[in-house]
């Protein structure tokens, strides 16, 4: 099972973090971010599926079995620019201007 969380949809209900706290962390205002890369091992399918089905705004989306295209061979996950006190930064510098 592979999922993604669309943070532009999340309205901070926090149901996901109740059902699957290992996969969804909430900020000080209750908005969720996905922990990990979205791959869910079989033993956690039940909890994550409950989170997915119970999200009132459908911000959790199960990814299909195939992708439009594979990721590049390069180190695209590695941010080449500043890591200011980032212990767990998973975002690459998203701005390509």
């Amino acid at each position, binding site marked *: 099972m592979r999922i993604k969380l669309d943070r532009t949809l999340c309205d*901070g209900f926090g149901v996901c973090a109740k059902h699957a706290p290992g996969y969804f962390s909430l900020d000080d205002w209750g908005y969720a971010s996905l922990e990990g890369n979205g791959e869910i091992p079989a033993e956690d399918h039940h909890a994550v599926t409950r989170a997915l089905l119970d999200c009132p705004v459908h911000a959790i989306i199960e990814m299909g079995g195939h992708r439009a295209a594979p990721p590049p061979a390069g180190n695209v996950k590695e941010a080449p620019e500043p890591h200011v006190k980032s212990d767990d930064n998973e975002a690459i510098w998203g701005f390509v201007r």
Partner: protein
Amino acid sequence: MTTTTALTIAAWPGIEPRLLLPGGEDSEDTEEYSSYRGQGGYQPLDDADRLLGEVDLSGLLGRGGAAFPMAVKLRTVRDNGRRCGGAVVVANGEEGEPASVKDRWLLRHRPHLVLDGLRLAAKMVEATRVDVYVSDQRAAEAVETALAEVDAAVLDGLAISVSTVQPSYVAGEETAAVRVLNGGPAKPTDKPPRPFEEGVAGLPTMVSNVETLANLPFLHRHGARVFRGHGISTSPGTFLATITGAGRPAALYEIPHGVGFTELLTLHGVPADQVRGVLMGGYFAGLVNRDILDATLDHESLRRLNSGLGCGAIAILTDDCPVAVAASVMAYYDRENAGQCGSCFNGTAAMSAVTEALRDGLATDEDLARLERWSVVLRGRGACATLDGATNVAASLLIQFPQVVARHLENGCKACRSGAFGALRPYEVEGVMPA
């Protein structure tokens, strides 16, 4: 406070410019087609794979801010496009950083250089669709005029469209560009998918900054070895730097990577002993204290300072208080974020409230502790990098200027007490290149 009235344009002493006009001309005009061709522009491309190999050897890094290897991007989009039945190339000229002017300058004054690079990139990724994405009206007009001048044979059947969008900080983010070209609003989307996987019209899409593209014609003509004649091994070539602050008129310089920051100060006429620090990468890469005086202008050196070259916009702080600058930038992020992700619109508002309170001598130790925690835990929690830019500013203020921050806890900053710095768009350079 920085009120810029004129823009100085110059190549680094002793170098033949590659991105600015040849001969270092400080021209108000747009370079003409005949003039660009006369200097060897629009050379035929017989072997796209060979050029891609040269891009690889050149080590060209993206100039939009992320410094992503151009060859990796080109090859990935080409390969994905072959699997998906086509690929798209977007020249991104939507320069959302208020303190940066280089993309606007390139598009207005050297549209043929950008278009030449764009058609080379399009050939390398075997693009079926090519777009130029801008907000600056005069840039759009310059590109449209240039497109009308180009011989059809030069573009070899390539149709290039120009799309304009209302300017905003987030409109230049690559997924916002894709969203606009797909008919949506100019706001970022969450990832995945990233544009190289699925972008414009659902096809793998390369969104490339216009300065990055503008390096390709030189590489095509001279090859990787000559390209590496300037710069250092990990940051090869030259880059365009927008320099603001220090009470000097703003400047656009073409600089070889790796030169010392103090050499830039000399060129710009700023005494080193007056420098308190810098705001790097537009608003994105945070503040650096006087350690910047030992840095060289390349990606590695600035990464060691927990900062970055970003889009090459550097604001030099002399009289301006770093706390006041941080408060202004944070307020800007609070206003200009896309209003989509809860962590971002709440986090920027909260960090803005604390930095403004700190500037105004009203913050408490508890406020500062919260700011420090947010500067760590909020990183990576937005769909785009706006929130990361805000956390960079907060974290760098606290780490780089601890004594200045402590003084503000006691309301001990005279400059801030007098309200000396309250710019809505600190170090903005739009004023010198009006729409």
